[in-house]
């Protein structure tokens, strides 16, 4: 943890209310344009909040690839057109953590009393582009050295998987249990990209992408958007089953994997989570349900250790034993199906995670409901761990 950060008073407690939350279907949405995606998510979140667009003070957008793939930046101004009003609008980018970072910045604007009610949108449209272009574009999340080495995004995580397997004597099958769990959860999520189960054998048989990661170890290319309407408590009306964001923490680490102190742990996650738990006044075991950034199976194995859900070295094994599985375990991870089964439209993921936890805490999660969920956590990571955004929600 940085020695030079200003530590806020323990007494100060954050209470940002979520007034409305919604996500679109995730998947290969060929006939849906980015504007349509945005409009759908924003309109549904607004409707859920009972507010009109004219009551929103600002729009925060999380998106990674629109500039690289679509040659379109200035997204704030573009997407605010879909709201039909001219309000301050911002695009925040932090690779795959763009959604979480957009939310963090939106929260900061509320805490500063610059705005009273804001809309946060995460959005990504990937399927207009070829696999080649996308592989290239995702490498923008890493460093120059990684790009020139030809280390694709899966390649960097594959190196992490090698390190993890070496250090903790884990097997590829142990990592595969993450995909198995998340696909199982996906079968209960009507918005998920993949709603079919997979077995360990399926994962092991799937084609290699970057040894040891195989096709079914990797989250897919997806389109999708998710939006939340948030406000300071004093500005929010009475809403039945109101969910609060009680911690929003961001931390960074080196851009390149090879520059990190540890190759089997994301210190950005450890730091942000530690600060979040402190601000929320809770411990890891108090979390009932979490949405984890499983861009690859190895990511979730490492995440549950970094977040304190599992002991160091036992993340994959615990998942394999069902400890994080719906209806079976305690701290349930990725009831939505995670990035693997629900899909990973990069910039949308961080907000979709918030939507999922909100629905879980409100008891509105349908077939994938975690019993008596009171406290939830979202874990959103950019690149191979260069930035992490952790949010804690309670009802």
């Amino acid at each position, binding site marked *: 943890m940085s020695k030079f950060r200003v530590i806020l008073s323990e007494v100060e407690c954050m209470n940002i209310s979520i007034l409305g939350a919604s996500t679109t279907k995730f998947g290969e949405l060929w006939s849906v344009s980015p504007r349509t995606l945005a409009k759908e998510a924003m309109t549904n979140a607004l409707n859920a909040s009972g507010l009109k667009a004219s009551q929103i003070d600002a729009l925060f957008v999380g998106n990674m690839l629109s500039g690289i793939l679509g040659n379109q930046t200035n997204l704030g101004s573009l997407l605010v057109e879909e709201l039909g009003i001219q309000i301050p609008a911002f695009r925040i980018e932090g690779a795959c953590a763009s959604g979480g970072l957009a939310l963090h910045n939106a929260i900061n604007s509320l805490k500063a009393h610059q705005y009273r009610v804001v809309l946060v949108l995460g959005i990504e449209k990937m399927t207009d582009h070829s*696999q*080649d*272009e996308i*592989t*290239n574009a995702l*490498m923008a999340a890493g460093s*120059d*050295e*990684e*790009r*020139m*080495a*030809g*280390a*694709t995004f*899966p*390649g960097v995580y*594959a*190196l992490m*998987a*090698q*390190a993890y397997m*070496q250090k903790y004597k884990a097997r590829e099958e142990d990592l595969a249990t993450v995909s198995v769990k998340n696909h199982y959860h996906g079968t209960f999520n009507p918005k998920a990209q993949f709603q079919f189960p997979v077995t360990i054998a399926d994962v092991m048989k799937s*084609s*290699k*992408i*970057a*040894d*040891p*990661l195989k096709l079914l170890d990797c989250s897919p290319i997806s389109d999708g958007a998710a939006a939340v309407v948030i406000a300071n408590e004093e500005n929010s009306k009475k809403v039945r089953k109101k969910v609060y964001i009680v911690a929003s923490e961001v931390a960074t680490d080196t851009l*390149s*994997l*090879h*520059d990190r102190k540890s*190759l089997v742990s994301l210190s950005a996650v450890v730091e942000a989570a530690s600060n979040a738990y402190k601000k929320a006044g809770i411990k890891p075991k108090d979390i009932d349900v979490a949405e984890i950034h499983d861009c690859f199976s190895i990511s979730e194995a490492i995440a549950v250790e970094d977040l304190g859900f599992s002991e160091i070295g036992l993340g994959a094994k615990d998942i394999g034993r069902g400890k994080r599985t719906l209806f079976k375990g305690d701290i349930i991870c990725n009831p939505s199906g995670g990035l693997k089964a629900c899909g990973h439209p990069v910039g949308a993921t961080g907000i979709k995670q918030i939507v999922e936890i909100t629905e879980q805490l409100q008891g509105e999660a349908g077939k994938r409901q975690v019993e008596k969920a009171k406290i939830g956590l979202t874990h959103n990571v950019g690149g191979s761990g260069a930035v992490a955004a952790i949010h804690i929600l309670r009802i």
Partner: protein
Amino acid sequence: MITSPVKLWRRQKSVSSLIGKRGKILLWTIIRVPAKSFVGEAPYPVVIVKVKNGENMIGQLVDWQKEDLRVGREVVCVLRRLSTEEKEAIIYYNIKFKPL
């Protein structure tokens, strides 16, 4: 991919100081689904190497055989050509690793 001649030129000093440096493989993977400009050479290994008296580096492993993909394998920094689809662009040279 990177095609700016200015960037190539700016990196010359640091790259030339690395040629001939030795190190050991810390981690390896094989890239099987490459980015566009690497299609011609895939599959190829990417390794993280601990350079002697230096930091960690990441790079492609060249002139390799299966037995070379192991933790602790000694390698040396060599200068190799980065592939590019563009027939008219400047040629990029970069450090790669070769098993000793």
